[in-house]
């Protein structure tokens, strides 16, 4: 059985699948944030995107400053878990340089939207929002009555991105994607989408993936394109590959305060850089090595082989 080869390069994947005006989700909860893909979208000058991300951190600040985004669908606007996103704030507080539409939920509200999208459901119920102003702010948060006689419950509508982009540790060429560490809502965000691009630290042989099928978060049927993109999550991290560049996050805050500085940074680190490899080279070996981690391997588990099968092969 020859599975289709879905491996391509990042610029081809973005050019083929991300078009102006689309609804695009880039997910990863503090881990595996697809920065390389976001930068490629900036480089290709996409416009009027509805950008979906639970935690629009400085990747959002960058894509919005670059003019790619006309609407944000999100649940927490901050850099990491602290700093302000000043580009977002300028847009929202002063419409500077222009307004930004925001559709706002809580974290679980976003997770439930992805779950509804992934499962083809018209809505998803959750026990939040009773007494909150959020449903007044966002009329898409609605109520249904409980046919079993309980109180009404709030629901959110499905989120169905045109494209979802995720970053992971590894995939095989046919697009079976494996990730570990914090997996967030990536499985849901991907299944909810029409098209899925997965950037990975490494493309591995099929037998690596097949040695541990429970590790596969996205089977090939859910993935459209696979891109090998080492370091693709920097300045966020990839468990077991490199750590979060906390200094970078701290450095961003002052840059973020000054729109000119943001544009200058984008020119230097995105537009003037052809791809992620060049970005890492520009970052420099010393800084990159400083983010390295030492090995801590999972202990293997046994999936077993039927004796007959094993014997047949032996003979």
């Amino acid at each position, binding site marked *: 059985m*020859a599975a289709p080869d879905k491996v391509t390069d990042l610029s081809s994947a973005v050019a083929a699948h991300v078009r102006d005006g689309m609804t695009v989700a880039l997910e990863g909860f503090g881990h595996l944030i697809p920065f390389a893909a976001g930068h490629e979208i900036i480089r290709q000058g996409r416009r009027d995107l509805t950008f979906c991300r639970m935690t629009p951190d400085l990747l959002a600040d960058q894509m919005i400053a670059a003019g790619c985004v006309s609407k944000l669908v999100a649940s927490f606007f901050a850099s990491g878990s602290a700093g302000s996103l000043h580009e977002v704030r300028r847009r929202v507080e002063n419409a500077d340089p222009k307004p930004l539409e925001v559709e706002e939920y809580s974290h679980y509200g976003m997770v439930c939207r992805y779950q509804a999208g992934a*499962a*083809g459901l018209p809505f998803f119920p959750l026990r939040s929002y009773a007494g909150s102003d959020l449903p007044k702010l966002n009329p898409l948060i609605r109520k249904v009555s409980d046919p079993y006689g309980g109180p009404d419950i709030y629901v959110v509508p499905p989120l169905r991105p045109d494209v979802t982009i995720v970053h992971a540790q590894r995939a095989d060429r046919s697009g079976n994607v494996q990730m570990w560490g914090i997996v967030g809502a990536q499985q849901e965000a991907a299944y909810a989408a029409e098209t899925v691009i997965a950037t990975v630290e490494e493309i591995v042989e099929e037998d690596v993936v097949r040695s541990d099928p429970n590790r596969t978060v996205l*089977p090939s049927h*859910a993935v459209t394109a696979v891109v090998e993109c080492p370091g693709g999550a920097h300045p966020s991290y990839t468990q077991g590959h490199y750590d979060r560049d906390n200094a970078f996050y701290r450095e961003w805050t002052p840059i973020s305060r000054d729109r000119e500085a943001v544009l200058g940074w984008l020119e230097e680190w995105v537009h003037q850089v052809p791809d992620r490899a060049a970005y890492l080279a520009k970052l420099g070996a010393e800084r990159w090595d400083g983010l390295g981690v030492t090995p801590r391997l999972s202990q293997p588990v046994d999936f077993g082989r039927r004796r007959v099968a094993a014997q047949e*092969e032996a003979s």
Partner: protein
Amino acid sequence: MSVPLSDVAPSSTEFLAAVAARQLVGKHRVFAGVGLPTLAVDLARRTVNPDVELVYESGVCGAQPEGLAEGIADSVLVSGAAAVLSMPALFGYVLQRGHVDVGFLGAAQVDRWGSLNTSFIGDWDQPTVRLPGAGGAAEIMPNAGACIVVLRRHDPGALPAQLDFCTSPSPVRAYEEDPRMVPPGHGVSTVITPMAVLRRPDKLGELEIGEVHPGLTVDDVRAATGWDIAVADDVRETARPTVEEVRLLRDEIDTVRLYLR
């Protein structure tokens, strides 16, 4: 030069499996139970559709079994598979989201609209026969692109005018409940029996006789069907399995005679 054909009986598993395999031309993802569907998919891979991918109700995707699976949860399906999903992901994200092109189903009764009964023969409260029930069929029917049913009997009991119970409804019945609730899937597109291949070309239409197995006539099939079944304009004789198809089934796929007699 013509391909040599086998003379296995139309009621044989080899015949039914070969006919079923041919239905998979151009299909990407098949949701299959154990038994004859497993043989059909395996045969299709070796003949008309090398790329066809199997998804099992147990959550296994991209299985590469080293032996013939005895059941949809067999350990040989898991070892070396591309993925094993939880049931919420399998039924919600894969099936209900629409990633399955073809579902194979069995049934005790099939009606003219392709609705299935796998629950009761006789009265619901005290049935003559308590059948296994819905299983995943009630999900496969509305969500798979189309469904293929294989019956081991062709008589008015298996193809009645009226089901004793509707476990897995045709889109026609969904439409009757609420036109807006018609599911994305076509429902049953094909019924393969020991006598014929029945087709349902219209999502809201009836089954009709599309192919009649060798040695039988359209009237034989109509007489054995529980309602006045329509006949396709292009009705023809079912193509026999090739000698090679039968050889593959017996000598390479089911060498241990798990499903073949």
